[in-house]
């Protein structure tokens, strides 16, 4: 397989945007193309990740629209829809095209423009990924699946709402250092849990999860320019490579899993990504996990192999996963702080890891980061893509 490098990265600020869908895609893509410094090399293929434009923005075939905006004719183009894991799935499609020799340079852009509709409609749009007969018909939404997961997980492993709040506080604080983050608001344990007014500040969404346990609804786009490693070397670009990608699926309805607290698709996807990369969890310096809900950061940190089952909250408590800890998780702010434009998230995770591995992450830089890991979690864990990125920088003597 031909090794694949990330030549350029870019993203829009996440949040509420006045840009159109094409405007969001273009802004992130142009930033990534400028960063890639392709010279006279053309883009062979464009892959767009998106979950809901057909419903939310009434626009389809948006990869063709992006090619048009960027005048990248006659590049091949397609849109990948894989729920909230669309972003990493699109990266996987780009990597496969290069690995198979069907393209040398691929632009991957993830986008979502969810604030085009109200929160009720946005929640319903995401809930449409749940099982139609066994879940959706009952009013099940993603927060409700996360709430039921959290209650069982907490009762089994002794977590409290305080542990969930620690995730939220950490990721809000990290997002304060990320100019692209949706949420720039420092929060405290007092404000979201301990003070009497926390009941008002932090109302229940799906017990035991409250507002500050849930990611916001965001607009945004993120882009990568991928190239074969030999093209990257010809262009003399500092290379971050995609060392391994893994993907696994699980039952559509959560009720059918033999242990509903086990994120087996995360475990299997991570194992596969590590195996393909020839690296293990202990060699990872920085991770971007899919904290659509605070409980998921803790559960994924265990399922991916960073901590033993049921002990992720202890590592969190000890500061292991904070900036300055031995395995910072979500230095970008994660989905909680950076925001979650669903189709863009998996790409944005890799944009952050690329900045981290190049040493360009500013005040949230993880020192000497060499290997990064991303978990892009689709459905409620029924389709997960895990990625290991590696810096190919040579040590200076």
């Amino acid at each position, binding site marked *: 397989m031909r090794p694949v490098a990330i030549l350029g990265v870019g993203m829009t600020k996440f949040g509420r945007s006045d840009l159109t869908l094409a405007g969001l895609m273009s802004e992130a893509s142009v930033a990534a193309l400028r960063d890639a410094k392709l010279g006279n090399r053309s883009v062979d293929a464009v892959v767009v990740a998106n979950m809901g434009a057909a419903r939310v923005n009434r626009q389809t075939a948006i990869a063709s629209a992006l090619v048009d905006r960027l005048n990248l004719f006659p590049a091949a183009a397609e849109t990948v829809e894989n729920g909230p894991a669309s972003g990493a799935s699109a990266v996987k499609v780009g990597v496969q095209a290069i690995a198979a020799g069907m393209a040398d340079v691929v632009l991957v852009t993830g986008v979502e423009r969810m604030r085009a509709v109200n*929160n*009720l*409609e946005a*929640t*319903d749009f995401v*809930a449409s990924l749940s*099982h139609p*007969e*066994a*879940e959706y*018909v*009952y*009013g*099940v*939404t993603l*927060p*409700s699946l996360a*709430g*039921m*997961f959290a*209650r*069982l997980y907490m*009762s089994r492993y002794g977590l409290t709402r305080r542990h969930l709040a620690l995730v939220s506080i950490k990721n809000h604080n990290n997002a304060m250092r990320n100019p692209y983050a949706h949420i720039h608001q420092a929060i405290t344990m007092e404000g979201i849990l301990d003070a009497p007014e926390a009941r008002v500040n932090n*109302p*229940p*969404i*799906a*017990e*035991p*999860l409250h507002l500050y346990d849930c990611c916001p609804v965001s607009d945004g786009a993120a882009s990568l320019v991928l190239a074969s490693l030999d093209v990257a070397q010809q262009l003399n670009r500092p290379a971050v490579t995609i060392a391994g990608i893994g993907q696994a699926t699980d039952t*559509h*309805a*959560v*009720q*059918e899993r033999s242990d*509903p607290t086990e994120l087996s698709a995360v475990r299997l996807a991570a194992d596969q990504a590590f195996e393909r990369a020839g690296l293990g969890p202990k060699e990872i310096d920085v991770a971007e996990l899919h904290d659509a809900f605070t409980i998921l950061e803790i559960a994924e940190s265990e399922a991916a192999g960073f901590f033993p089952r049921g002990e992720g909250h202890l590592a969190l408590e000890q500061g292991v996963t904070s900036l300055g800890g031995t395995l910072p998780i979500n230095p970008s702010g994660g989905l909680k702080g950076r925001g979650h434009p669903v189709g863009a998230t998996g790409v944005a995770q890799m944009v952050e890891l690329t900045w981290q591995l190049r040493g360009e992450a500013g005040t949230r830089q993880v020192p000497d980061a060499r290997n990064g890991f991303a978990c892009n979690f689709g459905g409620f864990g029924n389709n997960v893509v895990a990625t290991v990125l590696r810096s190919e920088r040579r040590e200076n003597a």
Partner: protein
Amino acid sequence: MPDQDVTGYKCRSCSTVAYPQHALCPTCGHDGFDPVSITGEGSVLTYTDLYALTLAYTQRYLRLAIVQLDSGLRATGHLLDPDPQLGKRIRTQIGVVREVDGRKIYGLQFVPV
């Protein structure tokens, strides 16, 4: 009324009941099934009070649960219990779980035994 029943699918080859429906039996891969009602007693595996409701609901919150039925199946539905607890015994009943354009949709509700 048959259209109000919630249906599981009993494999004609290995007798495993699957719910929800799969095209092939998750246990043996066979493709022939007989419908069976999802009914009986069990216990609450987990539950949540959902306050951020979708457009279909006007109440303040919805109490949703996944239950473990004594038959071995699990099901998701509405928990009608003012005092919910993990592991509490319940039985299934069929009731209105959603209305779409004025049309009532029936599904699983769980009540304390």
